């Protein structure tokens, strides 16, 4: 006679989910979540996935998919320290073999992009998988002007978007990032930015990029550039300062990627945009000379003076000038030449000058990615200048 076993299955969740790929999703409406889950399950079988969602998962609405809940953190436009910690804890608790963190508006990823990310993480060939987005020429300007060139020159990798929005990582990468995140969370800074690419470089872990196509890049809640730029650059400068022992050793960067042709932008509104940006640049040059003069050496100030006299489409910030400006601000950040809030606030008009130069370059028909790459190459070429000033800091301009 057949009998049913009254005992419940004692197999713990660890064993049930062991070997799965943990995919941590942001909070999404049900219909958008469904679309994203469909893309995920198309790329990998559902039994190989463990989906982590904030709050209680509506598992009955998505049969066949295994869910695990986690406590929602404050939404942010980038991946934060709290999210890294939560992801690693979930992975350890459930015995996952890899982690894929998808940031806000992840449902805007194309199916190809989702597939590319998933398979890159699933293959386990790299400890850190960073997506490479196809952005418009006028998008991601802060990344193109400061984040990417600095990361390339100092950490010798050509990750195009070092600011984490989506990330794939191995368990040991997750361990390292979780340890870094722990320090921020302990200091009650759960929303701090973690620079995963530099952490991987310093740890000697492998990094790969996955082409994911277009994506809706989430924007900060506070859209004011005057507060976001200092926050992002300040975080990056602090990270660079903490890793000075690593990047001062000579490195060889990865070979260049083939540039893809980009869509040309309209030239009709470029003149008005550039005029507005240059107005701000000249106003800053008139009023902030005293502050810039504390940070920048005389030859850089001379270069800025010449630029302030140029108008319209002829305005082009030389690559080496921009590289030295960023390096000088980095050194001033380290030396605390000025209050750091004032220092990063004084960088904003110079950044907008670079933006004007970039818009002019695009309007003139130059491939935007080539313009960005030439600036990044200038950062690499000017690295000895940074090393010299870093090692022998002088508290007055040469």
């Amino acid at each position, binding site marked *: 006679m057949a009998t049913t076993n009254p005992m419940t299955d004692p197999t713990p969740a660890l064993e049930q989910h062991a070997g799965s790929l943990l995919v941590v999703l942001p909070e999404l409406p049900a219909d958008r979540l469904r679309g994203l889950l469909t893309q995920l399950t198309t790329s990998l079988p559902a039994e190989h996935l463990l989906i982590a969602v904030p709050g209680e998962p509506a598992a009955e609405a998505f049969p066949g998919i295994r869910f695990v809940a986690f406590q929602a953190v404050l939404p942010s436009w980038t991946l934060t320290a709290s999210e890294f910690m939560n992801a690693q804890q979930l992975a350890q608790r459930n015995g996952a073999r890899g982690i894929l963190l998808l940031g806000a508006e992840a449902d805007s990823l194309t199916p190809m992009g989702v597939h590319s990310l998933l398979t890159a993480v699933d293959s386990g060939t790299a400890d850190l998988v960073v997506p490479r987005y196809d952005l418009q020429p006028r998008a*991601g300007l802060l990344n193109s002007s400061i984040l990417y060139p600095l990361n390339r020159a100092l950490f010798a990798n050509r990750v195009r978007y070092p*600011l984490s929005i989506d990330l794939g990582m191995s368990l040991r990468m997750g361990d390292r990032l979780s340890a870094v995140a722990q320090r921020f969370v302990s*200091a009650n800074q759960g929303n701090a930015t973690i620079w995963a690419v530099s952490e991987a470089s310093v740890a000697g872990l492998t990094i790969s990029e996955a082409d994911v196509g277009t994506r809706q890049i989430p924007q900060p809640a506070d859209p004011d550039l005057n507060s976001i730029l200092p926050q992002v650059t300040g975080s990056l400068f602090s990270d660079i300062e903490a890793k000075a022992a690593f990047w001062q050793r000579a490195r060889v960067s990865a070979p260049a990627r083939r540039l893809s042709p980009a869509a040309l932008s309209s030239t009709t509104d470029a003149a008005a945009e550039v005029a507005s940006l240059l107005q701000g640049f000249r106003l800053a040059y008139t009023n*902030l000379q005293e*502050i810039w003069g504390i940070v920048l050496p005389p030859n850089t100030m001379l270069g800025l003076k010449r630029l302030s006299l140029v108008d319209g489409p002829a305005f082009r910030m030389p690559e080496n000038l921009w590289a030295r400006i960023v390096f000088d601000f980095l050194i001033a950040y380290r030396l605390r030449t000025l209050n750091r809030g004032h220092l990063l606030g004084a960088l904003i008009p110079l950044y907008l000058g670079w933006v004007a130069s970039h818009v002019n370059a695009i309007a003139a028909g130059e491939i935007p990615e080539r313009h960005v790459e030439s600036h990044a190459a200038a950062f690499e070429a000017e690295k000895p200048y940074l090393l010299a000033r870093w090692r022998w800091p002088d508290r007055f301009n040469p």
Partner: protein
Amino acid sequence: MFNILAMFLQTPATEPTLPLYTDNASIWHHMSDALHQSLYRVLSLLIAVLPGLLAFFVALAVFTVIGMILSAVMRRGLTLIKFDDRLVRYRGPGDWTPTNSPTAIVSRGSFWGCVLLGLIIGVSAFDASYATASTLPLSLLPYLTHAVGAIFLLIAGTIIARFLARSVLIGAVNAQLQYARFLSLGVKWLVLVLTAAMVLDHLEIGGVVVELAFGILFGGIVLTLSLAVGLGSRDLVSRSLESHVERSSERNVDAPPPSNGPGESLRHF
């Protein structure tokens, strides 16, 4: 009267008259006595307070040397244990970003703390010797503490004025206000005038006159700023605000990006 008259008439008097120089000698004698006594009192006071004065300088010098040694030891010790790096690592990059490194702040703080302690001990010793030497129940200590407080007020006010001026300047420039430098100067002088009034009030100099002058000056500066910004540059302000709104909509990173083609806005992230 009759004696004087008789003296002038050279009539024999019943008593012999005293010579004139004897009265003058007595006056000079009294005067020199008075001078000698006052000189003696002052010199005695000075001699009495000299040990206190010497104690003041010795205390200040000793504690300055102690402060220098302590500062050097703390700087070396904190550098050895990588105090700055540990602080950033364990506390993360915080909102407070001082101009100097934490190690420099701690070592300088310890030095100036020792100097201040030496100053207090020295002043106390000087005050004690002055009080015992002087016949008047007066003490220098309260006035000296007021003076020290006034100096601290002045230093703090100057630092705050410079910081606020620079903050306003950078903020106004980034907001693309044409009168950024004017605003910055106005803020700086407002804080400096306030500081000066507080210092004079602390030193109990001027009294009501200072308070009145401060009120008039402060109100005048505020009124001038208001008139200049509100009325005198009305067109400029409206143009600045209009261009600020336009730039906010361009620079607004929430603006939806068109996929391709003309009219796409700048997106910084």
